């Protein structure tokens, strides 16, 4: 089933999205760092913090919403949905394959971010020091942290059969996510809201966002465990939902 989903990604519109958003983050981060070089003296850590600031708050989560909507769009066009529902596969296999396919494009987006950050830091800003391994680790952690949102957006895109509606819901979640990570009162929400989990994961070790966790087991494990648990719950809900949709 996953192989079928991977074939669908060939020549798909997900790739321009997965390329553009992280490059936008790297570009804005580079410009911001270059324009404030006198204040931002932290080298790679400060530069990466600039890159992931808006990316973590908005671009990454919004990108996941767009990628999931684009991945599902192909099913809702024409009668491909009928094709999917007349296979003899279990609903769980269908959901997991779609989630995995979306996760592949999310991973690509992260790879572009990390490589773009390294290239820009080394060749545009000419930052000193060796290649910071933290960038790669945070990039990988963010992929796992993104799973709940990947599942939620995938389910929304499956059920709503619309491109714009699930993306709008995602955007609303981003706004709530920003509020939850920047306000003390809403902070508990940042531990369960998928968009906020993304923000917290990408800002591990960051100097740009107050209250960012550190890149230590104490900072990383709660994010990873919450993400995996939440993703599992969402998949279970999705399987129940598709059973109802299937024999509507």
């Amino acid at each position, binding site marked *: 089933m996953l*192989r079928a989903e991977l074939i669908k990604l060939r020549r798909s519109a997900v790739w321009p999205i997965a390329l553009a958003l992280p490059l936008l983050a790297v570009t804005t981060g580079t410009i911001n760092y270059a324009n404030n070089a006198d204040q931002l003296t932290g080298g790679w850590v400060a530069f990466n913090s600039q890159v992931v600031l808006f990316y973590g708050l908005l671009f990454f989560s919004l990108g996941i919403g767009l990628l999931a909507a684009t991945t599902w769009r192909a099913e809702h066009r024409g009668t491909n949905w009928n094709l999917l529902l*007349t296979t003899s596969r279990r609903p769980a296999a269908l959901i997991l394959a779609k989630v995995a396919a979306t996760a592949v494009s999310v991973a690509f987006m992260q790879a572009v971010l990390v490589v773009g950050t390294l290239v820009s830091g080394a060749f545009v800003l000419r930052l000193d020091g060796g290649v910071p391994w933290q960038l790669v680790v945070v990039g990988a952690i963010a992929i796992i942290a993104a799973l709940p949102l990947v599942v939620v957006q995938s389910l929304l895109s499956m059920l709503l059969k619309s491109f714009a509606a699930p993306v709008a819901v995602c955007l609303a979640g981003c706004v709530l996510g920003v509020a939850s990570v920047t306000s003390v009162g809403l902070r508990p929400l940042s531990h369960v809201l998928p968009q906020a989990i993304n923000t917290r994961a990408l800002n591990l070790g960051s100097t740009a966002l107050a209250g960012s966790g550190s890149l230590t087991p104490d900072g990383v494990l709660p994010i990873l465990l919450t993400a995996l648990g939440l993703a599992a719950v969402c998949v279970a809900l999705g399987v129940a939902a598709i059973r109802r949709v299937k024999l509507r």
Partner: protein
Amino acid sequence: MSAVITTHGLTKTFRNQTAVDSLDLYVPQGVVYGFLGPNGSGKSTTMKMLLGLTRPTSGGITLFDRPLTPASRTDLLRSIGSMIEAPPGYGHLTGLENMRIVQHMLDLADTQIDHALATVRLTAHRDKLVRNYSLGMKQRLGVAMALAREPALLVLDEPTNGLDPAGIEEIRTLLVELASEGITVMVSSHLLDEIDRMADVLGILSGGKLIFQGTRGELFEHSTPDLIIETPDPGAALALGITATPVLEGLRLSGITKEQTAEVVRRLAVAGVPIHEVRRVRQSLEDVFMDLTGRGGLL
């Protein structure tokens, strides 16, 4: 002949509107079953119910002697290829990539994919993007996707929709070939000509109700064709009080039974009216439909 599909009182209601009303279908094994009806008569809804894509409001479905339930559906679908409403397909992928998707979803062998493409004569175009396919090629790809699993039952909803006469003939030939290989084909259409010459058994739907089900021959029995009596002297025949319409060859009599035919011929012979030929008018399927639906027009 054993049945591949049977339904009992199959009904689907959307809010206050009954789309399919108490359908008792009987689709024998190994035939082409033509499912006829005008647009909106409930054909697609019925086919969706047969595939478990829509839940019936009431009634039951039996496929291959097994009741269709959420539990049995997955297993039953392994033997059913389908194309509902329009051919599926991912436009940004090639024909072969589309077939590979079906292959991986159903765990099929390469040979099954190659055979399905060859059957619909798409092998030469398999590396072309589907968005660049003609409508006929898209329809054939849809049939190939349905065929790949080597189904015992093929459910095709309007597979000739939008095709030119050559394309229609191609699909018609293909479906007849498949039926000759033992595959039961249920094919719907709102156009009579497309089903005529292809279907062994017909089911006619009108306003959600099944108004006829049976062979083409049985359908013709529902209607009595007009009788033509060739005579050079129709005036003499009419003078005997026979109710008929003068035509070029002689007389045309409507709604006349075999017994009445014998009586008319006897009276003409006794009166010495020359009779050159007595024959029934050859009816088209459309004429029969018109009779069946009270000339209200079905299609």
